[in-house]
């Protein structure tokens, strides 16, 4: 069990996240949703220990120190299109930066290759990062995060640059990895249908406060979506049992 309790993050005089608390079970995927500027990235960075903040982060009910967070929590930032001519394999290897020395064991290189291979990028291992597409770059960063063998994986918009097929590939891979390795995954995501399809738990964030937390069916209501996004939404339960969420009106209700 992983939990964060009363997490508050301030930037100057402005409070970005206020008293956020939630629990996430191991082997499960939690989706963090909310409008732009709600504080999703800030909350993830505070949990990862990248941004200073108040509150507690606990793994198996034990408060995590800074070092424990660095060793056990992997954070994958949004793709900012950073250009680098590092090869894809070198990027993956950096996921275990504390294990890297002047020479690299064959086994480690083979494992890094396998990490690339799970996303079908094995043949591109010597390709430079700035020579691949935005979607492929996103997959490489995800493979890097998984290569670090974290106990808690925080993903910031992991499907933002991906086409429909790769969105499914990534989320299926993440869910499978979480289940097989018993890790906690929290991902910030904008696509509510994907969140409902893949996440075991949904956390709604609005103006830095947690507005709702639970199963997709409980959290996604037309009233809440109207409040959160200012959009009249239609929530449809498909024959497969999944939720499909779409906007009814082309124009937001408050526009």
């Amino acid at each position: 069990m992983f939990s964060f309790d009363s997490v508050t993050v301030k930037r100057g005089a402005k409070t970005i996240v206020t008293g956020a608390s939630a629990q996430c079970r191991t082997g499960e995927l939690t989706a963090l949703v909310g409008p732009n500027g709600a504080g999703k990235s800030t909350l993830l960075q505070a949990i990862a220990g990248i941004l200073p903040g108040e509150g507690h982060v606990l793994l198996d009910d034990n408060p995590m120190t800074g070092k424990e967070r660095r060793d056990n929590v992997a954070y994958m930032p949004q793709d900012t299109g950073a250009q680098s001519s590092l090869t894809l394999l070198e990027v993956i290897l950096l996921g275990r930066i504390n294990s890297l020395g002047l020479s690299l064991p064959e086994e480690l290189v083979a494992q890094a290759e396998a990490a690339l291979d799970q996303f079908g990028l094995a043949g591109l291992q010597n390709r430079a990062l700035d020579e691949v597409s935005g979607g492929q770059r996103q997959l490489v960063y995800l493979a890097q995060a998984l290569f670090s063998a974290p106990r808690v994986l925080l993903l910031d918009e992991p499907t933002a640059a991906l086409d429909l097929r790769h969105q499914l590939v990534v989320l299926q891979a993440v869910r499978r990895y979480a289940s097989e390795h018993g890790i906690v995954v929290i991902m910030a995501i904008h696509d509510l249908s994907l969140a409902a399809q893949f996440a075991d738990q949904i956390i709604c964030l609005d103006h830095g406060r947690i507005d709702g937390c639970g199963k997709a069916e409980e959290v996604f209501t037309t009233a809440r979506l109207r409040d959160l996004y200012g959009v009249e939404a239609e929530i449809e339960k498909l024959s497969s049992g999944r939720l499909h969420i779409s906007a009814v009106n082309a124009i937001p209700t408050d526009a």
Partner: protein
Amino acid sequence: MTARTIVSNISEAASAASSSYRNLFNRRLTWLVAGLAGLAISFVFDILTGPAFLSVSDVVLSLFAPQQSDETVLVIVRSIRLPMTVMAIFVGASLGVAGVIMQTILGNPLASPYTLGFSTSAGFGASIAIFTGFTLPLVPWLTIPFAAFLMAAVAAGLVYSFATLKAMSSEVMILAGIATLFLFQSLQSLVQYLAAPEVLQAIVFWLFGSLLKASWSNVPIVGTVFIICFLAVIPDLWRLTALRLGDMRATALGIDVKRLRIKMFVLITLLTSAAVAIVGTIGFVGLVAPHIARMLVGEDQRLLVPMAAVMGAFVITTASICSKLISPGSVIPIGIVTAIIGVPFLFILILRKQRNNW
């Protein structure tokens, strides 16, 4: 397909992948070895060239069997040319390493030891020493290098003070560095404006940068600083590599980016100050050597940092050879020649490469 076949196929695939990476790494390593071989050749040719004609056997005998060598040749090789060549290697290596680290921590391909104003401030320090005629007691020969080093340290302190106010972000470091550069450039111009013609001539000669100032008393200073700084960089090579993914990703990988920048900033200050304090302002090497190295060995700093050192040393020794050949009988200050040598070399590499390396 049997289980054994599947395991065998996976094992072969992993092995092929691993060997593919090894092939790339070995190819890059070969470039490093080739660079060292090129440096060894330019080292010998630099000692061979000069106003007095020497043969290869003269040089080899002087270096390895001094008892069999002619005394005049011995003096030329061991007391005049060898310290100049060794100084060229240490200065080039220092500027190459300082340049590549600067480009990495600032995430900027235009960065070099000049970017933060260290070289310009060293020039101002030397100018002040020449202008005032002040000499250090006991070690008068160290006056100008000391003044240059001191002023470079002052410039570093200025940039550092501003940058720490904004968490050592690369943008603030560059802005503070450029402001410092212009400040010391103006002060330098003021000193030159006020100086008498003979003093002005001495200042300008120092600013050109010349290996003629090298001697066995000052070579160990630059050499020791280089070796200490180079060894200090080694534990952080992977962290520097990670910094090429940007500050946020490096931080997400558990790297204390601010602390890393401060450490590298100190090392760059030491490397640049020591290099320019003795021989004067030698431009362009700190910019071009890292780019040449990056084109040949990529971004893995385990190879890039040593390659930048080798390329820096190679460019300066080659420039030193040319500075003696351009006008036979005299030695043109090396600071004038480095860009003339470095630019065409860089252009050739850019044209031959299919892709952008930054």
